[in-house]
């Protein structure tokens, strides 16, 4: 077992980094801060890779390794442990989190150079990685919840990293409050689970649940849907997706790490982890699929109309996570996790590349003010192109094709899938190709509108190149069945997850579907080229018409969800609080407060300093108590 005993070090190293930076950060030179920030994550990543290789070559018995550090406390048989659980699912998540984080940390050493909050930035980032690793490695839901809230906190801190600007603080607050809705649902779900199982140990729950609940049981429904609430908030899915586009107020590496690659997929992880619950509650699973499909469409349409390069990426993230939810909803657990991994690579890459562009353009976010950067920043351009290709799922050569295609196939072919779900995904794929390449063409082609201000250095280029290569080749570990029998990823996943059930007569249609989606992706690229580069007039003319302007605005505002919530939630609350200025609920508390004041006065009166009164009180108390004990 040897190397597995070091499992605890994987989260401990980032924590150590955080502690060092938090305590001594202000007194250290920036170089040392960068080294500590990166090295702690880098070592964790290295350790993960070593443990991962060990895991693949000689898997432990039962395909999991559990390391219990200590039991927090033990009361009434409820004893949450500080314990880590490594199985293929958490291994993949740990690998992606540590590896991508390492690259992003490395990138940040350059990106954040000269910022006065340099030590703070790396301290938060390390704390985030620690929390995220706690989340994915936790063997019980309480520890998972600790990580869950930890990443939420770091997200809040990092969105508002440049806190001197009011807007950023609002964005941070919005992210915190919106996700709080979900978290509240989730903690109620946890209470429900504790009540039913008297444990929060994930594996115990998963093994006990089928014997406790029939498929479709009401309690299972509630448990599943409450946990789903948490997942929706964290993963920015309908109806709690509104915080993510605003979260782009944070520094770009933060967007890459937290709001694209890792934290926002925590919801996917939670559902995949608790998959037994969802199989016991088919209704909820269907809801997951529908929410995924709806989200990917809405976010796809919204991305079409954005001008801010980071907002395009933000909507595309929502949309891609929608795909993962779709996969979860049709029971394709492995496909969801595969798409998570690939998405982490290419979306991290896209954000980092966008960050390099933004850095070069002196904090300019509007891509219509960029243009023609292809020649000036070749490395950034090519890697961005790879990432975009993967995002748009360009057939055969990009990794995104393999992962997204699998999801689309299962959306149709799974017993839980349907034509309508597939159609949504299919339209979404088309939209993805359009907005992705719109972004590529507008930013990197055409005439140059602004000078390059700061050339990317090696610590920016190398992470980009590594992620770029991964965005191309990482898909080859999961070749579609129709092409050959090489799928190590899903065979690894299927050791601990149920395999997707295919409906009868669907096996042969995979190739056909692949051809259709491939064509639609290429068609999307073509359309983007046509309307953004070749003849933008057409689009421009359309936008000036009344309908066009409305659609543009509607999409730009993300289907007006903010406005909707403003009307149905914020305004009523504000209105209520206005008419209830002298809060009647407050009266009760005020009464309690006044009672306290009164009691305080009385009690203070008794504390008058006269010994004779004290002794009287003592004797009186004794008399009363003796009466009680003898006569009651």
């Amino acid at each position, binding site marked *: 077992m040897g190397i597995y005993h070091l499992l605890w070090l994987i989260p401990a190293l980032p924590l150590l980094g955080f502690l060092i930076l938090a305590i001594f950060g202000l007194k250290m030179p920036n170089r040392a801060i960068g080294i500590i920030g990166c090295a702690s994550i880098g070592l964790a990543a290295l350790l993960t890779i070593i443990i991962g290789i060990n895991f693949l070559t000689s898997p432990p018995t039962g395909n999991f390794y559990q390391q219990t550090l200590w039991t*927090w406390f033990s*009361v009434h048989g409820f004893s949450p442990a500080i314990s880590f659980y490594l199985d293929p699912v958490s291994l993949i998540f740990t690998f992606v989190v540590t590896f991508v984080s390492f690259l992003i940390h490395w990138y940040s050493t350059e990106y954040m150079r000269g910022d006065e909050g340099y030590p703070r930035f790396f301290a938060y980032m390390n704390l985030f990685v620690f929390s995220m690793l706690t989340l994915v490695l936790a063997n019980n839901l309480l520890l998972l919840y600790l990580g869950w809230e930890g990443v939420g906190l770091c997200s809040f801190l990092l969105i508002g990293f440049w806190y001197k600007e009011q807007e950023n603080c609002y964005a941070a607050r919005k992210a915190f409050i919106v996700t709080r809705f979900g978290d509240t649902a989730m903690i109620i779900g946890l209470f429900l689970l504790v009540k039913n199982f008297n444990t929060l140990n994930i594996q115990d729950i998963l093994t006990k649940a089928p014997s406790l609940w029939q498929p479709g049981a009401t309690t299972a429904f509630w448990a599943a849907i409450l946990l789903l609430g948490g997942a929706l908030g964290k993963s920015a899915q309908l109806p709690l997706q509104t915080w993510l586009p605003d979260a782009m107020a944070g520094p770009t590496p933060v967007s890459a790490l937290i709001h694209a690659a890792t934290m926002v997929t925590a919801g996917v992880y939670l559902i995949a982890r608790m998959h037994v619950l969802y199989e016991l509650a088919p209704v909820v699973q269907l809801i997951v699929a529908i929410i995924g499909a709806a989200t990917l469409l809405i976010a796809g349409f919204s991305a079409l109309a954005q001008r801010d390069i980071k907002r395009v990426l933000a909507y595309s993230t929502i949309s891609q996570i929608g795909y993962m939810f779709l996969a979860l909803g049709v029971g394709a657990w492995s496909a969801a996790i595969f798409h998570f991994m690939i998405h982490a690579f290419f979306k991290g890459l896209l954000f980092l590349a966008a960050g390099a562009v933004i850095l070069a353009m002196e904090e300019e976010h509007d891509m219509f003010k960029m243009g023609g950067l292809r020649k000036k920043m070749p490395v950034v351009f090519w890697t961005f192109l790879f990432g975009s290709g993967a995002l748009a799922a360009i057939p055969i050569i990009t990794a995104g094709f393999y992962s997204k295609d699998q999801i689309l196939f299962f959306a149709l072919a799974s017993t839980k899938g349907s034509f309508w779900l597939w159609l949504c995904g299919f339209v979404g794929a088309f939209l993805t190709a359009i907005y992705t390449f719109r972004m590529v063409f507008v930013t990197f082609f055409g005439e140059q509108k602004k000078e390059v201000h700061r050339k990317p250095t090696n610590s920016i280029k190398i992470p980009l190149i590594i992620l770029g290569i991964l965005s191309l080749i990482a898909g080859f570990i999961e070749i579609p069945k129709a092409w050959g029998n090489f799928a190590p990823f899903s065979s690894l996943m299927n050791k601990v997850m149920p395999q997707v059930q295919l409906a009868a007569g669907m096996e042969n249609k995979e190739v056909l579907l692949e051809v259709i989606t491939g064509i639609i992706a290429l068609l999307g690229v073509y359309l983007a080229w046509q309307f953004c580069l070749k003849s933008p007039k057409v689009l421009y003319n359309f936008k000036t018409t009344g309908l066009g302007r409305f659609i543009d605005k509607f999409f730009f505002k993300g289907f007006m969800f903010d406005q909707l919530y403003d009307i149905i939630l914020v305004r009523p609350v504000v209105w209520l609080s206005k008419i209830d200025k002298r809060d009647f609920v407050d009266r009760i508390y005020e009464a309690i407060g006044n009672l*306290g004041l009164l009691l*305080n006065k009385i009690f*203070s009166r008794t504390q008058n300093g006269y010994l004779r009164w004290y*002794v009287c009180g003592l004797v009186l*108390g004794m008399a009363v108590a003796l009466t*009680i*004990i*003898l006569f009651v």
Partner: protein
Amino acid sequence: MNALISTAVFGIFLMISGLFIKSKQAIRILAISGVVAAFVLNIIDFRQYGASATELFHGMLSVTNFGLLFIEIILGCVLVYFLLSGKDLANIGHYTGEYFALIFFILCGVVLAATYGNMLMLFLSIEIMSIPQYILAGSDKHNLKSHEASLKYFLMGAFSTGFLLMGIALLYGATGSFDITTMNLAGRPIDAMALAGIILIAFALAFKVSAAPFHFWTPDVYDGAPTVVTSFISTIVKVGGFVAFIRLFHIAFGSPDVDKHWLLVLSIITAATLIIGNVTAVFQQSVKRMLAYSSISQAGFMLFAVIAMNVLSWQGILLYAAAYSLATIGCFAILMKMKDYTYDGYNGLAQKQPLLALMNTIFLFSLVGIPATAGFLAKYFVLSAAVEKGGLLWLVILAVCCAAISAFYYFRLIWAMYFKAGDCQVEEHAITPAFKSVLALTALLVIILGVWPGLILAWI
């Protein structure tokens, strides 16, 4: 019984050496090494005693590993206390050796409280704990308030000792035994004499742990005594009183047909303690006086361990002893460095001494019971012990409400330190790196106990 012997011998030794050694520093180091020695010797003892009681000196002492573990915690807290506040203790007046000697005598009493097996030993332990306190409370000879505190404490204490002796006498009359294990009240109709005895003893002990309505002396004494002494008597001695309380009531009066008689009275005492302690603390202006009231309210929580009477309550009192003592000693250590003891005196401490403010915040969090600090788990344990006991849910709800009230006056201090602008005066020269590092280690310990209570609980 290494702890008993070593504390007694060291007490006498320090008393004498105080006459011959003029250097305060040397005496302080002697005292610290004495605590360390007692600590180590107690560990050696620990191996020899198990969970079942071992009778020593014809049943005068009954030693269990719980008692020894408790002594170990107390000695650890005293070590922290000496390291943090030893200098302040040495500087109360001229008689440095005597102050430390008195502390050791008190420790001797605490050791007895954790191991007595006989009512006479209980009486002795309570008196050995109390008499040095009377002296220590009055040790600041130039301060009239200190004299007042000492005299009040002494007179009230004499009163409660009377209760205690009367109670023991009545119990002896009813049962014919002083031995807490063979007293055997269960299994036969209980007579009023025994009940009156139980209740009188309960009052005497409630007085020692400052439970309402026997708490009146507490604010005056804690406020009047030198701060460094208050720090000691409000922590170590108080939890020492609790261990005497819990052992007597669980072992001698714990059987179900006995406890139904006194449970109601003690529940009312607990409720009154919680309410009075918290409500009165809310509007205090002096932090020192606030901490005095807070010690009353914390006593209310510890009383849960007495009335719940199950395994959880034993674990809870151990945790509570450590959590409460460490946090309060830390708070007092910082308080002693302030020139102004009011809330306003803390204004802006976070700018001036960020580390002190942070550590103080951690201690206050622990006193409130914020998760991930030792105080949270301690409260959780004693309250869930009460829930497990059953029939006490109203009290638990009251306690949780009171914990919420307590957040107000604790957080007010954090508010003053962090969010109020001001120019607080601290004794800069007394804040040495050594002091800071011990303080940081104490805060770390508070957090470690909050996430890993097994550090203590694994031993029983």
